[in-house]
């Protein structure tokens, strides 16, 4: 970036662009709101469950895998940040940096192998796993 130009001036087009997008979005939503028809019907106010009457609580318990995935994402995404830093500086870091990064990646892959082996990456339900045990890595 050019040092003399202040960051705010530099970003001006982006800000204008962002404003324009906001305007369009607002126009679309607002237009629909103003133009759209209104009607009331009893069935419309129920959650859609494939046409049958909804049952049970909305706050269902969901698979722990979603949760695991969130944690893996947080961890691995953070690790990739370090790789990003290495990628741009790969030439400056030289072979020493390459070895260090390889070690880092090696540990990451080892972790992945571990996670795969303990079944943390296996999304199948218990029944699916039982039906196809051969597939297990």
């Amino acid at each position, binding site marked *: 970036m050019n040092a003399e130009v202040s960051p705010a001036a530099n970003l001006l*087009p*982006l800000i204008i*662009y*962002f404003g324009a997008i906001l305007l369009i979005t607002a126009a679309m939503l607002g237009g629909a709101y103003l133009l*759209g028809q209104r009607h009331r019907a009893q069935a419309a*106010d129920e959650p859609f469950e494939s046409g049958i009457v909804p049952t049970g609580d*909305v706050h269902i318990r969901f698979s722990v895998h979603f949760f695991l995935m969130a944690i893996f994402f947080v961890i691995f995404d953070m690790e990739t940040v370090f790789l990003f830093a290495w990628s741009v500086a790969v*030439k400056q870091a030289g072979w020493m940096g390459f070895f260090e990064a390889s070690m880092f*990646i090696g540990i990451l892959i080892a972790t*992945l192998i571990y996670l795969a082996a303990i079944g943390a990456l296996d999304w199948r339900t218990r029944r699916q796993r039982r039906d196809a045990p051969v597939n297990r890595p």
Partner: protein
Amino acid sequence: MNAELGQASDIVGILASVIFVAAMLIWVERRLLAIWQDRLGPNRVGPLGLMQVAADMIKMFFKEDWIPPFADKGVFVLAPTIVFITMLLGFAVIPFTPGIGIIDFNFGLLYFLALSSLSVYSVVLAGYASNNKYSLLGGLRAAAQTVSYEVFMGISIMGVVMQSGTFNLREIVEAQRGCWFVVPQFFGFIIFLIAVIAESRRAPLDLPEAEQELVAGFHTEYSGMKFGMFFVGEYVAIILSSAIIATLFFGGWLGPWLPPLVWFCLKTGIGVVFFILIRGALPRPRYDQLMAFGWKILLPAGLLNLVATGAVVLASSG
């Protein structure tokens, strides 16, 4: 800093054309799918059904702006706008031609990655705000899928960054004068392609909205213009992905004889068509297969690709 960039004409032109093309894609996709599946597709409104888009648009505007009474209203309205806005914002860094573009940003690639991860909020919030079991499950699935593939996406394009030594998209394009990165970075390209499809939740990786299981996933309760935003947002995402693929792997505006803008549009257009083709051609995998594939294959492959690229770059630079 390129003084030609960021003109008012650029801003208006880019915005208008992206939205127009995105809207037109509704028609294009239906026509193309129909052709590949040996049927007609929309052909009643206007010549070749070209006015279908306009008709849909008008219909949307006049549909009821319905917010379910059981929903979390503020979030419910906010959710679809997020995907729409972030995807449009992504175009700010796309280098259309040396002279066309909104901003020349040193960390353009990171900016793109950041925006594409922001779009996950849209599905999660939509799923949560709808207060509907299908929506919630769809939203969760979408979130898990998106965040997972985001990791691989980031890693897959780092090979490109290594070879060009920069995050600046314009410099990346310039670095491909000798050879398009799709050649040395073929693995990276494949991973990125898969990741991008998963990221934008397009068929065949549209598990979050798989209608057989989840009705329509996170947008089950959406209708009218808010549904339209999800819809259009998806097409904008396709265009954005194609543009990025063109930029990163196919040399962006570079090309002989024709003007840069044409080259760029051509490459992007091919990308878009390819996306539609994939949708028409491939079956949908099971969700656990999708996730396992990502974590067990794509991620290690991406990491290895990175190591190999690093070695090659270092070796060739002496």
